[in-house]
């Protein structure tokens, strides 16, 4: 039987002063207009019973389309104009720039960092644009580290204070929060670059270090059962496909192995608990293969930015944080898989997609803290 498990996703509800609330109304209006036009379009194309009807339909469609295009461009124009007006209004009434409003208005964490990132990326100031490009270049080349990082953060804050005409003495709080924003945003990018290097490194059976790590994985997961030889069917017990795991890492390269290794080392009890589920006769799955697929999912979530919620609510992003995110995903996936009571492994893709959908949904809430908070009782 499975051990009882509890996993709690603690969601602290934080009161936020959202200063950009007005924007949402416009988006809704816009979506409404689009829907109405599309509805008219499909409706008109449905009845094509005779020739006259058909030509009427075509005319109607053409009319709707033209109108839609015109409205769309008009909408874009109005939107950008209103946005600038709105920002100017806030700036003059509050005497604060957008970055300050974000740093003061949002609690520390994903809400503040994500909005700061958006604001910096959308900035029209050439100096800020240059600054963002420079920081991107540094983090892409994995140089957003140590002293260089401290130096860059100081310089960036200085630049922003200058461009936005903020006095350091009047806003010491801003300097501190904004430094942290820079640190998180570009440490995340640095992490992405580091992860990519690992992913691009293929598993190499001639590399002793790679082989040692593979061996370590076995010993962590199956401590009571020694590996008979390097190429053996035993690998299938921890969910590799054949006699030799080297062909299973594929596009995930060393990253797949490192992820599995971290999970098995740092959360050994959890990992073995999950492995015991994977070896279940009816609800079982291939542990390692599913793990490699989850590496791919973790990577995808990080790349398209949805995972920022997770990382920005934790310690400063680093490769260790990426491994932790992976462990969280694996543990939650296992729980979800058992809940779904799949008939066999063929349901993997559909359950995987549902799981990904749920995770993305949870990541939308900027105040959510994702905790691998579990107790395992072996009943």
């Amino acid at each position, binding site marked *: 039987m499975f051990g009882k498990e509890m996993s709690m996703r603690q969601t602290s509800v934080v009161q936020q002063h959202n200063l950009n609330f007005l924007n949402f109304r416009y988006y809704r209006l816009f979506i409404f207009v689009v829907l109405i036009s599309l509805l008219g379009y499909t409706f008109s194309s449905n009845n094509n019973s005779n020739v006259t009807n058909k030509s009427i339909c075509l005319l109607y469609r053409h009319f709707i389309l033209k109108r839609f295009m015109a409205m769309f461009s008009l909408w874009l124009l109005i939107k950008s104009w209103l946005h600038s007006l709105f920002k100017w209004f806030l700036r003059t009434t509050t005497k604060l720039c957008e970055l300050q409003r974000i740093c003061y208005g949002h609690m520390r964490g994903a809400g503040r960092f994500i909005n700061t990132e958006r604001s910096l990326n959308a900035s029209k100031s050439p100096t800020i644009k240059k600054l963002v490009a420079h920081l991107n270049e540094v983090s892409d080349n994995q140089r957003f580290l140590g002293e260089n990082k401290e130096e860059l953060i100081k310089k960036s804050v200085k630049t922003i204070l200058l461009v936005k005409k903020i006095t350091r003495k009047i806003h010491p709080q801003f300097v501190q929060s904004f430094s942290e924003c820079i640190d998180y945003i570009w440490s995340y990018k640095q992490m992405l670059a580091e992860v990519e290097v690992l992913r691009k490194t293929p598993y190499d059976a001639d590399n002793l270090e790679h082989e040692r790590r593979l061996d370590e994985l076995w010993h962590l997961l199956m401590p009571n059962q020694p590996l008979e030889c390097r190429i053996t069917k035993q690998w299938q017990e921890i969910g590799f*496909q054949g006699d030799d795991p080297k062909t299973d890492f*594929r596009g995930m390269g060393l990253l797949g192995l490192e992820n599995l290794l971290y999970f098995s080392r740092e959360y050994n009890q959890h990992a073995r608990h999950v492995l015991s589920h994977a070896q279940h006769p009816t609800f079982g799955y291939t542990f390692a293969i599913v793990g490699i697929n989850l590496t791919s999912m973790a990577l995808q979530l990080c790349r398209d930015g949805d995972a920022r919620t997770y990382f920005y609510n934790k310690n400063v992003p680093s490769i260790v944080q990426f491994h932790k995110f992976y462990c969280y995903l694996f543990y939650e996936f296992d729980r979800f898989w058992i809940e779904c009571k799949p008939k066999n492994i063929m*349901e993997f*893709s559909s359950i995987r997609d549902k799981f990904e959908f749920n995770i993305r949904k949870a990541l939308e809430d900027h105040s959510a803290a994702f905790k691998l908070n579990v107790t395992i009782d072996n009943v």
Partner: protein
Amino acid sequence: MGLLSILKRLRSSPDKELRLLLLGLDNAGKTTILKILSSEDINHVTPTAGFNIKSVTSDGFKLNVWDIGGHKKIRPYWKNYFENTDVLIYVVDSADKKRLEETGLELYELLSDDKLHDVPLLVYANKQDLTDALTASELAEALGLPSIKNRAWQIQACTAKEGVGVKEGMEWVCKNAKRK
């Protein structure tokens, strides 16, 4: 009317739908071929747990391609996907000489199944870029393809990760699809 005609073309459905089944041992390159067909990035391929499905349009055909994992534990489920298959595509790692016999046996089993009776067979001799890869004709000989008399078959050399040879195989598929 430019935009209108584009929209109309998008809405018009292709003439015929084909159901293609991609099978083969694990690490043969099935998912990579699927990704090439749907013009997706092939650098992030992972081992297939379960199956993948993609719909692609080619030469006026709508191809529904089913890529089923090749792992030994999954192979017993292959037969659940046989129904209504128009073309069977079998992928072989031409450089994996150790498992040549195993892949031959799996293929033989597929061909003797009733549900796949007279379904055309395309064999991709994949990974031609590897130095110790068998050529397409050597592989055909090794798999005993020339003795197949009850169906149309073809062997196509390819290097899926470079996209070489995949298109030629699909052209044959579209020409020889089982008439319903």
